[in-house]
């Protein structure tokens, strides 16, 4: 979003396709009503938007379709409270407010030429999806691409159609895991950090990008450290309660940094410079 207009004034969008990703997660594909706004909407992979239901409020979601595919903006929404509950009730052709893009993005320029190791858990797959699709659309810029993605159960895995596609590609590797055994599940079983330890990727020439629930992140960061990944080879995203999304309302700070404007994307090296208040 540029700085010339009113950053509190949402665009109005219309819901296109609604995808039931998992029992508590839906994806909404949204097109801004103002054609010109839609055409001039520029964002970077990892940036977020505030979606709103007028009368209920706003909540923050990563734009998980990549900027290389602009037919619509996709958001995946896990049911968590008031606004997300109402977003889940939206159906095709319903209006929705969109305020964005906001925040920073993945340092995809600096990642060029590196092997990329994505580690995602649960709804944390949403920001990874953007970057992964963006990199697949600019495939020659990056080395080997691996995605390790875990969920509680097979039905909790999002983006099932794409998983099939990624599975079939020979220019990336996909490793899926669920927390425990399930009938007909012939992939890996185990928590993401444990599977990561088993796979034991070498840190040589790699950047790891990890998003997921806080507990998964914590153990994944430990595992990466154990494998010899340096702090500047690890990238993650932070979540904080947000309201304004533009560094004014005050709530999302960690020391001098605002997750809404300086984040949500941080390298582990950057995180370690902040006061310990996660």
């Amino acid at each position: 979003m540029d700085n010339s207009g009113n950053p509190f004034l949402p665009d109005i969008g219309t819901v296109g396709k609604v995808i039931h990703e998992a029992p508590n997660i839906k994806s909404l594909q949204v097109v801004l009503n103002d054609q010109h706004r839609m055409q001039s909407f520029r964002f970077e992979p990892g940036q977020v938007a505030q979606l709103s239901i007028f009368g209920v409020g706003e909540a923050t979601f990563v734009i998980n379709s990549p900027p290389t595919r602009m037919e619509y903006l996709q958001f995946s929404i896990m049911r968590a409270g008031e606004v997300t509950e109402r977003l889940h009730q939206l159906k095709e052709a319903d209006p929705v407010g969109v305020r964005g893009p906001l925040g920073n993005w993945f340092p995809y320029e600096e990642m060029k030429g590196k092997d990329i190791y994505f580690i995602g858990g649960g709804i944390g797959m949403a920001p990874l999806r953007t970057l992964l699709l963006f990199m697949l659309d600019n495939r020659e810029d990056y080395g080997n691409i691996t995605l390790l993605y875990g969920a509680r159960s097979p039905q909790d895995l999002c983006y099932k159609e794409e998983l099939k596609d990624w599975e079939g590609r020979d220019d990336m590797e996909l490793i899926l895991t669920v927390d425990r055994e399930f009938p007909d599940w012939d992939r890996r079983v185990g928590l993401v950090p444990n599977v990561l330890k088993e796979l034991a990727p070498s840190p040589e020439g790699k950047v790891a990008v990890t998003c997921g629930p806080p507990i998964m992140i914590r153990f994944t960061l430990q595992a990466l450290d154990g494998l010899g990944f340096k702090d500047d080879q690890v990238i993650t995203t932070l979540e904080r309660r947000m309201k304004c999304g533009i560094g004014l309302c005050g709530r999302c700070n960690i020391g001098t940094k605002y997750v809404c404007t300086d984040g949500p994307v941080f390298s582990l090296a950057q995180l370690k410079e902040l006061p310990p208040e996660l």
Partner: protein
Amino acid sequence: MVSREARFLATDNIPALLRRLGNTYRVFAPVKVSDTIVLFQEFAESAGLALDEQTTLPPKELLFPQTEGLVSYRYRKDAEDLEKSEVQVEETLEAPPTIIFGVRPCDARGLTVFDAVFTDGQWRDPYYKARREATTIVTVLCTQPESTCFCTSVGGSPTGIEGSDIILTIVTGGYVAEPVTEKGETLLQDEAFTPAGDKAGEAGEAREKVSVERELELDGIAEQLLDIFGTDFWEQVTAKCISCAACTYVCPTCFCFTITDDTTGIEGSRIRTWDSCMFYLYTLEASGHNPRPTKTERYRNRIGHKFSYHPTSYEGMFGCSGCGRCIKVCPASLDIRQVLREAKAHG
């Protein structure tokens, strides 16, 4: 500030001046509403002005209202297809020309903290910005600082001009008025202002005489607060805090807010309301996780923000103007000066 442009404003001429200005502007001035409470109120001749006391609340709510509409919305059913609905959204921005008469230097300086964040940063707040531009701040320099005043410790002065458009210095029979900005200069064209003559010299002397002791040495406080971030200091100082947030409410530099929707039927408005970093709900995440779960983390963030994070991000500017209101209102007698002194001495 150019002193040769100084004018004289006789005390007797003030009501007529404010009445005249009231034709073009909303005019606010301090009014004593009870024995202990002085508030900025829309000027009415009958009320009488209380220019010699600190107002109970700073004038910030005139530029940053406690509640204000940001956008309004209205749903409409599609006549062709009742399943379908549309929503219309409009900006609601009001910034009537306003004069705030009788502001204190600390409160005017407090606005410069807002300016740094709301108008000069990466993102601009159009609501505050429009109101700030439409408002003229007429400041009365301090002559009798109170025991809670510590403006000089945070870089201010009882005779400071930052954030003001006009400054008034009390002299025999009235005030010497000097413009600080173009906006101020414009106002001084009113017939109530007469040539200052000798009064200008008297004003200069009066300003020399006022002083507020610089009781805190805050050099290095930004780094020190980070150094003691993880210590038990914060638990100790907040033991008596009751998380009431009165300190943030009366603060001329606190700007935290929340945004909520207020709907009746098919229409409503998205409103902004003052919030406080001292509240549990302020940072509570939908997952139930709260990065600042107790008053200890919250107070640490409040002090950290004002004396470490803000000055680090804004060229040394503290998020505090030393007005001392938080000291006056705290039901637990927490004194921010004492906290800062102890923080400096800790470890």
